[in-house]
């Protein structure tokens, strides 16, 4: 956070909600994002086709619950409603296939950590999908991807206000200025003016 004012490039995320004016619904989630999808499925179901693409994580695997919900509770055909993937590469390939086959009016929903949400945006952009047309929910972690403005390396899973750059090892102040194209916050050397003068490092993005 920067004291005193709010940086407008910082994305604000809400919870997923069905967009009822639609031809079809594509939901893509990873790890804890599965819980956000389950919450979405508790809302009154839209009549159009629903497809969930899911990448479980070791610490957060909601595959079973998703399968029970879609098949046993909602009575959907699991083969078309859920595709579960073991690797990120397989997930992105599946998303590409789904978007290639989809028509105008397909609504896209994404749930996962922030880096994941903007990876979805980058993939979808290849199919002409605008950022504004994707619903997003930031699930669980507030961890940030941080772009080092000095060496251009992106450090992942940053939980603190100041982070060591994984590229050049500088201590970076994690700003609120966010690039949707990079899916990352700007990191700026904190002690450039006075080398060694680094404030306390605090965990504020758990």
């Amino acid at each position, binding site marked *: 956070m*920067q004291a*005193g*004012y*709010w*940086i*407008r*490039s*910082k994305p604000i995320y809400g919870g997923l909600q069905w967009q009822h004016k639609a031809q079809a619904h594509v939901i893509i989630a990873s790890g804890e994002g599965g819980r956000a999808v389950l919450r979405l499925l508790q809302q009154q179901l839209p009549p159009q086709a629903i497809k969930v693409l899911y990448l479980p994580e070791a610490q957060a695997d909601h595959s079973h619950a998703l399968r029970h919900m879609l098949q046993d509770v909602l009575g959907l055909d699991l083969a078309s409603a859920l595709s579960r993937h073991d690797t990120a590469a397989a997930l992105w390939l599946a998303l590409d296939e789904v978007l290639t086959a989809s028509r105008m009016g397909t609504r896209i929903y994404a749930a996962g950590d922030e880096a994941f949400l903007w990876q979805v945006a980058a993939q979808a952009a290849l199919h002409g999908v*605008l950022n*504004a047309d994707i619903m997003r929910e930031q699930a669980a972690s507030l961890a940030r991807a941080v*772009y080092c*403005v*000095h060496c*251009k390396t992106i450090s992942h899973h940053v939980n603190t206000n100041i982070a060591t750059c994984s590229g050049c090892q*500088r201590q970076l102040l994690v*700003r*609120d*200025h*966010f*690039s*949707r*194209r*990079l899916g990352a916050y*700007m990191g*700026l*050397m904190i002690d*450039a*003016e*006075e*080398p060694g003068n680094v404030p306390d490092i605090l965990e504020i993005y758990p």
Partner: protein
Amino acid sequence: MNKLDHIQAETAAFHHAPFNEETFRGDYSFHNSAKGIKRFPYPFEQDHYMYSVNIEPHQPGKPGAITEHAFDIDEHYVAECEDKRMTLEQDAGRYAALPHMMDAQWDFLELTMESLARDYPQYFSLLKDGERWTWHNSVLGISDSFIFGDASTLPMEPFEYMGRQTQGDFVLLDQREGTLFADAGFITSQADWSLAFDIGMSWHEWHGPVPQVDKMGIMDRALKFLMSLQQGKPVRRLNWTMTVNPRLDTSPEHYPEWGPDRLTVTAENAGQKAHLRVELQAMFRLPRSNAILFSIRCYLLSLEDMATQPKWIKRFHRVIRDLHPDLLEYKGIKVYHEPLLQWLAPHDDGAVLSEGAQLD
């Protein structure tokens, strides 16, 4: 070929043109002539400063004024072009253009070549033979013949080609989805913002870090105004900040190099070290792409030079003394605010100053 020989002969006479030998880094030998000081775009019309949408038509100003021509070429031209070259050599990411911006790139090349050749015929010439254009820059010793619209016939992309030969920074804004996107840029003298990070951002994202403006609705109004900008009716405004040492490349990329300079300002040396940095920002609607060219031309003035004009230095003291804390922080002045005021205060006798930025 005959035509070109003729042009070369004609321009050869200007090789001793009045360009300063100076640097914007290292020994910082940058300096303004007496004429350079007088034409400096002093931005403060009142003793107090806050943002405003201070946009006016970019109409030709008086002869010799920085606004006489669409693009101002001044005594710093050669040194600034050399500084651009060095910055790009260190960090190629200062120039970037998303692929859909090629029409806008040609728009930029056309606008700058036509303007420079028309306004400074002693330095630049442009010959058109259908789509075959020949550009001659006698100051930098550049001469190229190319097919307009065919980037493979130029040594580099058209935006970069003319960006290197025109003073200032340039952003090409694509208009879509009800806003403007910064989809191409040539940025080597920026006041602490990163093209590599900001490219592709929408208007509001790009201006996100600017404090105090949001609640005033300034950015919304400026965007609305720019979206309806018409071809042939460019507009301009002034913006300002301060820089320690006359450095053009105050990029966040190189912040570790210039950041420490802020701690070297003392009440004794502020007159030489601290510079007022004014940007003449001009905006042009481009004909083919419907993009907007945002040009940002940087002028530097040391406080010592400013003090040769009593009205300017007195007012500057008051502006800096009373500046909003968020702006002191944003403009990077906070860390040397105290020595700066110590240097400025003795120059201000508190006299009532006339409204407006003009010299009395």
